[in-house]
């Protein structure tokens, strides 16, 4: 099949960027979206042009590295999937496909389609952990955790940190990401001791990074490759308010 691409090209974080047109013939519908980019880059390099820079690694939907805004949607038209899990059979022969990087103040562009998502790491560093040193754990079965609770924690914990929630949100809000982490640890007994301070610190860091506020449009959850539920955002709100009202920190 033939594909007309419009790809965001930007030399580096300081340079201006623009959409550039490319035409590709001989694209197989069985190719993944990133393999289509491999073909493009191969053609560009043979012509002596710089290939398009884009983040990717595992190519099986779990590392969270790939991050393309395709035809107006984070990770493209397929829901519950990352860019690497999108296949060209989702497009028609002759389609025009517009590809842009994630857009958010907190995710500055590094080059072409590659952005800096270290803000997410800093949010986790601010409190997304249980303070337990290696070796100080007691037996794993000492605290029974009801299966429903373990499942709820897992639903939140499966976030891959790709940033599609931020990219899809009209406010570039990171609420779903932060909520997933807070919620995962808040429902487990292991996370209880630090649950107040965790919610307070992670929200403060989220704000400091320049993400927007939540308008509850639900776009994040729809575009999330792991379909993480908005329930977790409600829990974050609850945790945060509860923490602010009851914690001893003044």
């Amino acid at each position, binding site marked *: 099949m033939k594909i007309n691409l*419009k790809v*965001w090209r930007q030399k580096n974080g300081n340079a201006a960027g623009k*959409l550039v047109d490319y035409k590709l013939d001989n694209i197989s519908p069985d190719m993944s979206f990133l393999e289509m980019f491999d073909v493009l880059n191969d053609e560009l390099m043979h012509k002596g042009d710089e290939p398009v820079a884009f983040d990717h690694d595992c190519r099986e939907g779990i590392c969270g590295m790939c991050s393309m*805004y395709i*035809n*107006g*949607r984070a990770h493209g*038209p397929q829901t519950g999937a990352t860019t690497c899990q999108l296949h060209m059979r989702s497009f028609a022969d002759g389609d025009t496909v*517009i590809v*842009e990087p994630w*857009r*958010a*103040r*907190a995710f500055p562009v590094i080059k072409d389609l590659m952005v800096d998502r270290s803000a997410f790491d800093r949010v986790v560093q601010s409190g997304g952990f249980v303070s337990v040193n290696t070796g100080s754990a007691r037996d794993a079965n000492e605290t029974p955790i009801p299966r429903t609770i373990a499942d709820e924690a897992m639903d939140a914990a499966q976030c891959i940190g790709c940033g599609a929630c931020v990219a*899809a949100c*009209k*406010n*570039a*809000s990171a609420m779903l990401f932060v909520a997933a982490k807070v919620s995962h640890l808040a429902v487990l007994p292991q996370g209880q001791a630090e649950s107040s301070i965790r919610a307070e610190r992670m*929200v*403060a860091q*989220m*704000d400091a990074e*320049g*993400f*927007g*506020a*939540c*308008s*509850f*449009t*639900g*776009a994040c959850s*729809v*575009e999330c490759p792991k379909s993480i539920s*908005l*329930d977790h*955002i*409600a*829990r*974050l*709100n*609850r*945790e*945060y*308010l*509860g923490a*602010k009202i009851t914690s001893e*920190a*003044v």
Partner: protein
Amino acid sequence: MSWVTQTLASSLGRKVIMSLTGLFLCTFLIVHVAGNLQLFKADGGRAFNEYSFFMTHNPVIMTVSYLLYTSIVVHAIMALLLTRHNQASRPVKYAYARPEANSPWSSRNMGILGTVLLIFIVIHMRTFWYTMHFGPIPMAEYDGKEYKDLYKIVLEAFSNWWYVLFYVIAMAALSYHLVHGFKSGFQTLGLRHKKYTPLIEFLGVWVFSILIPALFAAMPVYFFLKHVGVIG
């Protein structure tokens, strides 16, 4: 900063203010629509005028009404601040975006809907609230007691087709505003539960987004149709 200002200045805190003021305004709508239903009573406006008198003279109601005005102002200012913050969070926009694929229109346009409502509130208050408080307003007499005849002002206002149309549009905006706003208020407060959230969503749609705006809109339409003689 104290913990209170710190909390209220955070993105979540601002949303909480939006939520609390918004939900408070929702409760006001119930009272307002219930009271105004007396317009439909075929008694030449007596029940409505007596009700208006009560609402402007009862000290508790008067106190609450100042809370109401404050809520409107705070809700609007906070919305403005949040919108500016949210827009700044994405300085470079997408060349092509398809938000309709992942979220309802109303949820993305609360600011526009809210602006329509704010304009409506100003005009609405100028027409009725201002006239009620500062006149000029005709008087009516029931059982030897004088009442400001707000009913007559209502009749007059709703005989204007463009004024009626404006009301209907504003109520459509209210409908869209509340279909998203009511349930969001609970979400922001963290009140989400498998058992109760469906009830909240039901109320948000059927009561706040359909019933209340429809009843409000029925009032100008009813009086206009009466005015042009379509109904008796």
